[in-house]
Structure formats: structure tokens, C-alpha cells
């Protein structure tokens, strides 16, 4: 259920996301999800890619500082309340969300929420108990 996400450190300057994106494109590695967390001075590029091991190796070989973190991908109906239902399932538990980001996909009227939990195993157990669908990495890549 856990999905490997790559995070890159980037200075907040023009063009600093273009070069990793170009590198991945040259190697035909697909970016399935991407989120940019930024401050005034620097940012963190978080992404889920089609071949994370090869991508991490490639980026590191080109001097990027890469961190691999485990995240969960939750599939919810793309309708009002979709997110609230998932978060509601976590109410009253000690499961802490470090960060999350979301994106819809139009063909099936579903949305994907990517979560980084402080304790992913506890989160998996809880979400599965209440019947929330977690995507395996192959499923996320084949959307």
C-alpha cells in the first residue's frame, strides 16, 4: 500500500524545476503526481513517478539531493465531502498527517489524495477498517 515518493530540494529561483523535469523526460520516466511546497527562498518538489528507483538514481547522479519517503494514495469519489469523509475517519485517532496533496482525474470521477502520515502503518489499518480504498503503486501508475 505504501508508495515511494521522491522529494527534491530546490532553490526558489526561475528554472530550478525545469532541469529535474527534463532529466526525467529524457529517460521516459513519467511523473504521476507532483506537488511543490515552497517558502520565499527555497522549495521542496515532491513527486510520484513511474520508476522511482531509476529516477532517484538519475537525479542523484546529476547532483540533486533526493529523499525517498513513503506516502499513501487514497482514492475518493470526486464530489463535495470526498475529502471530509477520509479526514473524518481519522478523527479521534492519534494518526497525524504530516502533509497531503490532492488531484482529480476526470475519466472515472474519482480523486486521489496523497498523504504523508507520521505513522503510515496505523493509517493503513484505520483507513482499511472503515473501507476507504488505498491504491497500490501499480494502480496509481496505471490511472
Amino acid at each position, binding site marked *: 500500500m505504501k508508495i515511494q*515518493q521522491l522529494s527534491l530540494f530546490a532553490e526558489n529561483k526561475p528554472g530550478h524545476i525545469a532541469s529535474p523535469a527534463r532529466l526525467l523526460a529524457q529517460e521516459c520516466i513519467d511523473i504521476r503526481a507532483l506537488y511543490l511546497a515552497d517558502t520565499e527562498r527555497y522549495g521542496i518538489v515532491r513527486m510520484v513517478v513511474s520508476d522511482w528507483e531509476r529516477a532517484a538514481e538519475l537525479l542523484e547522479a546529476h547532483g540533486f539531493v533526493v*529523499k525517498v519517503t513513503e506516502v499513501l494514495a487514497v482514492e475518493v469519489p470526486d464530489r463535495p465531502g470526498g475529502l471530509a469523509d477520509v479526514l473524518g475517519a481519522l478523527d479521534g485517532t492519534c494518526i497525524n498527517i504530516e502533509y497531503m496533496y490532492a488531484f482529480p482525474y476526470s475519466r472515472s470521477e474519482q480523486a486521489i489524495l496523497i498523504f504523508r502520515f507520521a505513522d503510515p502503518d496505523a493509517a493503513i489499518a484505520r483507513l482499511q477498517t472503515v473501507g476507504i480504498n488505498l491504491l497500490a503503486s501499480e494502480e496509481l501508475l496505471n490511472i
Partner: protein
Amino acid sequence: MNSVLETSVTDCHPASVPDYSPIPELRDLQLQRLQSVVTRAWRQVKLFHSRMDERGLAPEDIRSLEDIAKLPFTEKGDLRDTYPFGLFASPMKDVVRLHASSGTTGKPIVVAYTQEDVDVWTSVLVRCFAGCGLHRGDIIQIAYGYGLFTGGLGAHYGAEGLGATVVPTSVGHADRQIMLMKDFGVTAMCCTPTYFLHLIERAAELGVNLKKLPLRAGVFGAEPWTESMRKHIEDASRIEAFDIYGLSEIIGPGVGCECRMHQGLHIFEDHFYPEIVDAATGAPLPDGIEGELVLTTLSKQAMPMIRYRTRDITMLLPGRCECGRTLRRIGRIGRRSDDMLIIRGVNVFPSQVESALLQIEGTLPHYQIVLIREQELDQMEVQVEVTPQMFNDKIGALQGLYERLQNALDHVLGIRVRVALVEAHTIERSQGKAKRVIDRRTS
């Protein structure tokens, strides 16, 4: 001169015997050599002769070692002003080697050696290496620059004189340096400490574990470095790191070196006479008080240096070293009087920035100081590369790192500076001496 002395040290290299001279004999030898070098410089070097005349001094006025304080100083500017050969005391036919410094402003400075000078230089380097526990059978890789810079050739002759096997790689080509260290079973490395840091980093990228190599010692010099940098180097490569000191104007590397006690650097006092003076007034300072190191060459033929102002800030350490050497020691040199930056009226040394950065766990010392002027006000930016150890993919953690760096710098420097986290490998790596400060102030 070098009478065979009784010494309790059994594993001592023959060249190291003078390291253990009884102090009264050493002082007699120093006085005799001081009188001789002053006489030689007075006879042969016009600038020195005229400065002696101005003070109403003649060589016979030097009757004790304390009288050295009567002599005029020599400064780097004197070498530039007399470029190229104005301070030579030997005719060119007796000069077997010329070296020159990379002059950052205008002309370089030139230094000369007779065969006797080269032999003395080799002998002091043999004593340095022997003091680091190296001997015949060691394989020493010299990654100081070979050429006009004294580092490469100086260390080379010394290592050969020791009887070691020399791998003269010179500086640069990090991948090849690492390959040879591994394939040749190199046991000791000579280079600048920042270049070795670069090799540590590159070896990790190449998947070479330096801790598993036969490498056991590093003899690092040509730039100031800190105790925390030593710890980092030793932890990352499992070697014993030694600080070696020297400057071209005096002879090159080998003026002084640490022994295995690592309690300061022994000065090879039978050839180089050390004094500490107040950098502002030039007044002599007692042992244990920090000031500018001034050196006099006691046996140099081609280019004697009388009371040369090194600009290096250190002290003569009181007391004797546990290693048994009678040679006096200087403290490690952390800064130079001419490295000092003045930011909004506050004195700042690059070494302070380094020690602040090293307080932050996991910070490798790849940093750069950039000085700019905004609205008539000097600003100092410290750029720090984000390493895999420091990087965390939570914004809060990065912000925490940023704040810890900011606080450590503010605390150590006493002024507010700007911190910039920059991407890895974006700060230029040094091949020789690190270029830590980029000054973009236009005055």
C-alpha cells in the same frame, strides 16, 4: 653541527635527531646561525643593509637571541617591490630552484633555493612525516599542486627523503585520485584539507568506502582549518589527520608540523626562529599570548628572511610536548590577520563562520561567504549547501535547519547575517586553497 645526540626515542628517523636537542645546545645553535644569517643578509641584500643603517645597526649588535627584536621586519610587500630577484643573497649560478606564489594582486612573489636550501627543505619535511608516524614502506600520495607552488615539490622531496613510495598525482582529477588511492594501497595523503573534503564527498558518490582503504594518515596544510574539520575528516575516512604549516617566503611546507600528540605544531627551530608580536604595534609578546607569527630563516642561503611578518595569528605554546621533542610549538592557525572581514564595523573571520556551521549536526563544510553592499550598508550572506543528511522533505524541518544555522551564525559572529540554503554541488569546489569569500562590494 648535528652531533649525534643521546635520545631515549628508539623509533626516531635519523633526520629527526635535532628534534630532541637539549635546549641549551639548541639556543646556542640558533644564536650562532642567527648571527651568520644576519651578516650574510647585511652583506648581500641591499634593502636589508639600508634598513640596518637607518637603525644604526650592524651585524655585531646581535649578541643574544633577544637582540632579534632590534632587527627590522620584512613584509610581503618587500618581496613584491624587489620583484623578481632583489632579495637574493646568492648569485644566480648558485640558485638551483625558483618558485613563485600565485599573486592575487599584480606580480607574484619569487623565492629561490640553493642546493643546500633544497636539502634543508627536504630534511624538515622528512622530520614532519616521521613525526606523523610515517616511514619507509608507506605509500604517500601528493595531491598538492606541482609547479611554481611550493606545496607539491616540497612534499614530494620530503616523502622521497623519508624513503616512502611517492605517488605524485598533483591536484585535480578527483576520480583518478580516488582510484589510485584504492588501487595502489596508498597509506598517506598530502593535500589541502578542503581538497580532502572534496575527495571524501566524491568517494561516497563513487561508492568507495575510504574507511576500508589502507589509508591511515593525512598531512594537510596550505590553508587554515579547524579542530571540528579534523574531527569530520577523521570520522569520515578513519585516518589520523595532521596539520602541517609553511609558507613559500620562508621555505614552503615544513616550517612546522604536528606530532602524534596533536597538541600544536612543532617549529623546526634549528632552521626557523619563531616570534609572536602584536600585529598592530610589532611589539614582542610572551608565550601563551596570541599575536602574529614572525619567522626568521636561520640557515637559508639563497633568500634569507629576517623577521618575516607571516600575517598568521597564533601563539607559542608554553611548556614541553609529551612526545619528547624540545622544539617549541605554535597553536594551530585558525586565521590570518589579512583574512579579517569588516562587516558594519564588526571584525569577522571566515573561520568563525566555519565553526558556527559545524556546530549544526550533519552540516558538511561546503559554504561560501558573499559580501554585497546595499544602500551603503555591507551585507554578508552565508550560502550553505543542503546535503542528503540535512535534507528533510517537510518544510517545517527545513525551516528549523535554517533557523538553527541563522542562530548559530548570529551567536558566533555577533552580527546579523543572511543565510541561504543552496542546492548541492552549486558552490565551486576548491582544487587548492579554498576560496571562501566572494566580495561583490564595489567601493
